[in-house]
Structures are given as structure tokens and as C-alpha cells.
């Protein structure tokens, strides 16, 4: 094995990963960087357009101040290169020869047009792994279709099941299309690295379609199977599920609370508690007893009874008192609740990252906690901050770098 071991307390070896992605793949590079890979953002000389994206810290615009950019680029390094110029392409090829992985999310065929596609780059680097994360993948009749977050939510069918049945399909907030494609790409990249380095394999190309990745993020609703089996289209159900009854978000005395009754035992506990509190005997009706699907015909009645119950408590009361009765009530949080949550605090979720321009902010880092390995904690890079050291290590001298700079290549 010729590759390096991870540093102490870090999960991943310092694999060199070139990140050329836009919003489609920005989370992929972030996950690898947060766990210890050397992820280098390869930006055009004017910078990744994400640097221009509001809101800015303190509402002051600036290339190093976008909250979006700062979050999605933690622990990455940054070089600039104009890959549309011949000099830039030569430079990028040198960089690519030093890389373990390249991730990109350009329109299908763009890298080939530049002469920077996988087949061209691997000639100088047979171990190279390249992953493309694109809206519809590299093949098939929709491969050139234009997309955005909203379009991805529509094409995958996510929107079809979000919202009220009497209203339009709704966009899920927080740009959910950022995650499924990027996360599937990381699993494949890790697989490809293990294949190459532990299984005597070679490099390879990975094609991820965001549409497909997103379809796999709501498998439990399985609309294609529903159509195949029943000739029915799964649709929107509002704030309450039709998969499990009762389940959903209900109003409380001071906001929203979510609740879900999955097992027959839980229904028994909840219906008894509801009876104790409301005195309404209807809830004890034998027809409502049983598994989560046995109540499907009575969804409307049960929802009304649940709301009569939940509105008598605060969300916190239901959350904690529910647990005493082996029932799951979960708060509907906003970002300020997250920052004050004792559980996140206890599980080492927050890291203070000091950034020379925007100061110190709490960042959420890491989806697991471990005594042995923790996330790396460097803030997002300044534009081109690593040009000298990374290009210098490739044997590009100071005068050559100066010329590239003057020529607008870096």
C-alpha cells in the first residue's frame, strides 16, 4: 500500500480530491474534507459563483462572507485556474495527475469538450477515480435537460408528495437536492478507493444521477411500485401521513409537535392517555385498535381527536411526558432551537471555527461522534489561498506562477 495513513484522530487518509462541483456536488466534497481528505476546490479565477450568494455574514457582501459558501466548503483548500484556456487546461492536467479523485457536476459533455474527461485524464494517472454528479446522469434521453433544485424535486417526484392534497406540489425547503446525489457519490468514491487500494483494483468512473438518488430518498412511499401494483398515484397528504396513523405534525399550545404511533402497544398507550386528559370515550373505540394501518379508514376522526389532545400541552411537555409513556412526540425545531439543544451540545455537534474575515461562528460538523476520530475544523478557504503551495509542489516555479497570474489563468 503506497497511500498514507490518516493523521491521529482523523478518519480518512489525506487523499487528494479535486472538487469542481457546483451546488449539485458541493456536499460531496464537504463530507470528504470534514473527515480528513485533502479536498481542493478548483475555482475559476473570479471564484466559485457560490461565493456571491446571499445571505452574507452581517449582511455585508464579500467573496469570503457567504453563509452558504462558508458552510459547504469547510476544510477545503482552494486553487484558481481557468480551465477554458489552453494554459489552464495544461495546469489542470498536472493537478489531475496528482489527484486520487476528481468530482464534477458540469453539464454532460463539458469536460470532454475541454479535453479533461476521465478517459483523457486517466492516461497520466491510471489510479484516478472520477465522479460526475449531474441532474439526470451521463446517459439516457434526459441527460442534457437543464435543472435546478426545484426541477430536481419535481423530476424525482419528491414534490408530488410534499404539501397539501388540495394545493400545489411543494418544494421542500433547504434545497434538499444538494444531499442525495452528493451522499451517494461519497459512498461510491469510498468504495472506489477501497477497491483500488485494498483490492488490487484500478481507478474508475462514477456516474450519479441526482434524479435517481432523490428517488431513493423516499423509498418508503415507493410511487413507481404503487403504480405498477395498483394503478394508483401516490400523492400529497398535508401535515399528516397516510403510511402510519396517526403520524404527522400537530398544533400544540405553543407551536407544533410531531407524533407517530407505529406499534399496536403505542396506540394503546396513547388512546388511554388521551382518554385520561380529554374524557372523550370515542378514542377507546375498538375499531381504532391494532396496527398502524388498521386506523386508515378513520384517519380524519383520529386526527381531530389527536389535535384536541395536543393543543392542551406545550411541545416540550408532550416531548418529555410522551417518553414516560413510551410514546414518540418530537419537537418541530427551527434553527435557533438547534443551537440551544442540549442533546446536540452533549454529542459534540458544534465546533467554533475562527475565520479571519467573519470571526468565530458555531458550525455543525459531523454526523457521528467518536472518541477515536473527530471532524477536521478548518474554515472555508479564501479564494486561491493555496495556489502557491499546491502549484509549487507540482514543480511550477515562481516566475511561471507569476506569468499565469498575469495572464489571468489563475
Amino acid at each position, binding site marked *: 500500500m503506497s497511500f498514507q495513513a490518516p493523521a491521529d484522530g482523523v478518519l480518512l487518509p489525506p487523499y487528494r480530491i479535486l472538487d469542481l462541483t457546483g451546488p449539485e456536488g458541493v456536499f460531496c466534497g464537504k463530507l470528504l474534507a470534514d473527515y480528513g481528505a485533502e479536498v481542493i476546490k478548483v475555482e475559476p479565477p473570479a471564484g466559485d459563483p457560490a461565493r456571491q450568494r446571499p445571505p452574507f455574514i452581517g449582511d455585508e457582501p464579500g467573496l469570503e462572507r457567504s453563509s452558504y459558501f462558508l458552510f459547504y466548503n469547510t476544510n477545503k483548500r482552494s486553487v484558481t485556474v481557468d480551465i477554458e484556456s489552453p494554459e489552464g487546461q495544461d495546469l489542470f492536467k498536472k493537478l489531475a495527475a496528482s489527484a486520487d479523485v476528481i468530482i464534477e457536476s458540469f453539464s454532460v459533455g463539458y469536460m470532454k469538450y475541454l479535453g479533461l474527461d476521465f478517459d483523457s485524464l486517466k492516461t497520466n494517472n491510471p489510479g484516478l477515480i472520477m465522479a460526475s454528479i449531474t441532474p439526470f446522469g451521463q446517459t439516457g434521453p434526459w441527460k442534457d435537460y*437543464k435543472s435546478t433544485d*426545484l426541477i430536481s424535486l419535481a423530476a424525482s417526484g419528491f414534490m408530488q408528495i410534499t404539501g397539501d392534497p388540495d394545493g400545489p406540489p*411543494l418544494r421542500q*425547503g433547504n434545497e434538499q437536492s444538494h444531499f442525495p446525489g452528493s451522499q451517494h457519490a461519497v459512498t461510491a468514491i469510498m468504495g472506489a478507493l477501497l477497491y483500488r487500494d485494498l483490492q488490487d483494483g484500478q481507478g474508475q468512473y462514477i456516474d450519479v444521477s441526482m434524479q435517481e438518488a432523490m428517488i431513493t430518498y423516499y423509498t418508503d412511499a415507493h410511487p413507481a411500485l404503487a403504480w405498477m401494483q395498483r394503478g394508483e398515484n401516490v400523492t400529497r397528504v398535508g401535515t399528516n401521513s397516510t403510511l402510519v396513523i396517526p403520524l404527522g405534525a400537530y398544533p400544540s399550545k405553543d407551536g407544533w409537535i410531531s407524533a407517530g404511533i407505529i406499534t399496536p402497544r403505542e396506540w394503546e398507550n396513547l388512546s388511554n392517555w388521551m382518554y385520561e386528559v380529554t374524557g372523550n370515550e370515542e378514542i377507546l373505540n375498538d375499531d381504532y385498535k391494532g396496527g398502524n394501518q388498521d386506523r386508515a379508514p378513520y384517519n380524519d376522526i383520529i386526527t381531530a381527536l389527536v389535535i384536541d389532545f395536543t393543543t392542551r400541552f406545550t411541545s416540550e411537555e408532550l416531548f418529555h411526558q410522551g417518553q414516560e409513556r413510551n410514546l414518540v412526540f*418530537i419537537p418541530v425545531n427551527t434553527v435557533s432551537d438547534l*443551537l440551544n439543544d442540549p442533546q446536540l451540545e452533549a454529542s459534540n455537534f458544534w465546533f467554533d471555527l475562527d475565520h479571519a474575515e467573519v470571526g468565530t461562528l458555531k458550525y455543525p460538523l459531523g454526523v457521528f461522534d467518536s472518541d477515536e476520530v473527530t471532524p477536521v475544523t478548518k474554515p472555508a478557504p479564501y479564494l486561491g489561498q493555496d495556489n502557491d503551495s499546491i502549484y509549487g509542489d507540482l514543480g511550477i516555479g515562481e516566475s511561471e506562477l507569476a506569468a499565469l497570474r498575469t495572464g489571468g489563468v489563475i
Partner: protein
Amino acid sequence: MTNQNKPLSGVRVLELGPYVALPLTGRILASLGAEVIKVETNKVLDEMNFIPAWSRGGGQPEFQRGKKRITIDVRTPDGLEVFKELVKVSDVFITNFRRNILDRWGIDFPELRRLRQDIILMWQTGLGGIGPYYTYKSYGILVQHMGGVSLMSGEEGEPPATINTSYSDYHTGVFQPVAIMGALLRRRLTGQPATMESSIFKSGALTAGPAILDYQSTGRVPQRIGNRDPFAAPHGAYQCQGDDRWCAIAIQTEEQWQSFRQVIGNPDWCSEDAFSTMEFRLANQDRLDTLVGEWAATRTAEDVMTQLQDAGVPASVVSQGQDLYESEHLKARGFYQPTPYYLADRSNPAYEWEQFEGIAAANPPKMSESPMDFGSYSNIGEDNDYVFKEILGMSQAEVDRLAKNQSLY
């Protein structure tokens, strides 16, 4: 000669736990070549076998394919002993039971590490395995509301638009294989194992990152804005001809706006000052949405999408099940594959269940040299013989005895 190895050839994973995130983790590891042994018991079937009502077990092939599925009741003394024998021959153990439950059953992480010193442990819970809620029971479909995203979804002034699925489970389920593969690499390079504790709560909260930074800086909390976007207009789902048929349109650039005008025949309103720049289009989007909606309403969703995409404008039908099932694009990519399904029966929990043929999604990443296996789909308990006799070397008489006393059931 092509290398027949898979990324995880030679790695054995022991899985204990129901629902979505954890089984999905095991399934992805199986697709990458690991031998994944899933421990279940007929006495308490995974509730996902009964969801949704129209087709019990929708999604089960996606969560269980490629695994060796065995029955052990770890709550029995004999069952626990067999389980511990499996720990000794496994590289990775993954579970999503809370500590108080594991304690009750006598499954203790330090002891597992004594049984197998270099085992990698991935311990997933809903809310967190340590900290004040460590004993709290939870479900992924609800924990998604804790992560902050529900309150960013929906129409302005309306209740949060929740989604009829537990998407936070998938964040966790697809992330955990990455952590496990990282830990396997690290173990090979440093000799050190790792214990990792993850939660669906944390996976969900992580995705709220930019909003968390913005809140600290400005005190702003994200608002619900329906299908609108701070930077683009027109931007929404427009109702078309047919029953519940919609097409989403998202115009982000001036070039796309000009192409859009051509496609819709450049009606007079397009030339109004009110729509002359993105800034104005955003400011006047109520009226803009009405006008775009009037155009879309007289067409089919497919026509709207095709005409706009042919002109380079981002647009898509809001896919229903039928669209996905019949999609020429997904067919060309081989996305849905045939698979058996097993219809669970609470009154007859052993594995002679009714079977039917359905479809399941392939693994989204297409890997050129070590393609991910679709995997064959065993029913619960179907691999008992292989695991107990071939891996653990138990005799038929012993297996029969423990099956009869309901330890291996």
C-alpha cells in the same frame, strides 16, 4: 483480466436493527461486496414489513437486498450466545437500538470489543446515544422535524409542509457506509478500530448549516416561501391539463427568460417594464405566476416540459408514480429492476409468506470497474443454514434444538 474483487470483498458486517436508516446502511455495504448478516426475529417483525397498506413491504428490497438474513432472538440466553459467536467473526457491527435496550439484552460495546478486539462499531439512534435524550425512543419520520427543515417547507403563513416519507433516515443511512468504509481503511493502515455513534437528529440538523450560520450572524430564521426562490422567477409548479398534473419551471438567468418568451409566443405582457429584469420579475411574481399559469393550464405537463427543455429552460413534470414507472429515461438507465416481494403476515411470522414480483430501485452510483451489486433478496431466516452451519460450524442437531426452543427463531 478484470479484477473480480468488490470494494468490500472479505468484509463481514453484522446488523441488528429495524426501520430504514440502519438496514439501508447494511444494504449499501452489501452492494459494495460485504457479507452482511442481518439478525432478526420472527417474534417482532420490522414494522416496515407492513407499510404501506396497499403493498406491505414497499421498499423492503431496497433495504434488505444482498444480505444473509437469519433469525436469532438475542433476548434469549442461547440466542445471545450465538449472536456473540457471530461478533467474533465480524469486522463491523451496526445497530440502532438504544443503550437501555441493549443493556437489557446483555449487549455491551466494551464486551463486544473484548470478543473481537478490532471490531468497528456503528451505533445509530434517532436522537443520540449519549446526552440527555439517550433513552428516548424516536422514529426517523418524526426526527426530521427536529432538524429544522420542516419549518422551511410550505406556503407562507401555512402549517409546515411535511413530506410523507422519512427522508432524514436516508441521510443517515447513506452516510454511515462512508464512515464505516473510512474506519475500515483506517483500521488497515493504523491497526486501530473505531466506535462511532450517529443519530438521525444530527444528520438532519447538519443539513441546516447555512441557515444556522445566518441565524448567528443576523438573527434571521428561515421563512416558508412555498415554491418561490429568493433569486429566480418565474419559479414554481404550474397546473397543467389532466388530473393533478403539474410542471415545475425555474428561470434563473436572462438568457432562459428570453428563451421562455419565445416558447410562449412572446405575448405582450412579456414586454412590460414590470418583467424586464430579474429584480422586477421577483418583485411582481404574483402576477407573473398567474400569467405563466394561464399559459401552462391549456397544455399538458409533458408539452410544457419538452418545449421548454428544447429551448434550454429548466422545467420538469412533477413526476407521479406512473411517470417514474414508465419513464423512458429511467428505463434507458436501467434504474428499476425486477425483484420478489414477500407479503408479511402478523399471524404467520415464519418466512413462508405470499410472494409477488415487483420492482426496486438500483443503486444510484454507476461504477465502471466495480459495479454495485443489485443483489438477491432473501426473506427473513432464509440464510439460517448457511450462517449457523457453514460460518459458525454448528451441527444440524444444535441448530434444530435452538430453533425448537425459539432462540433461533
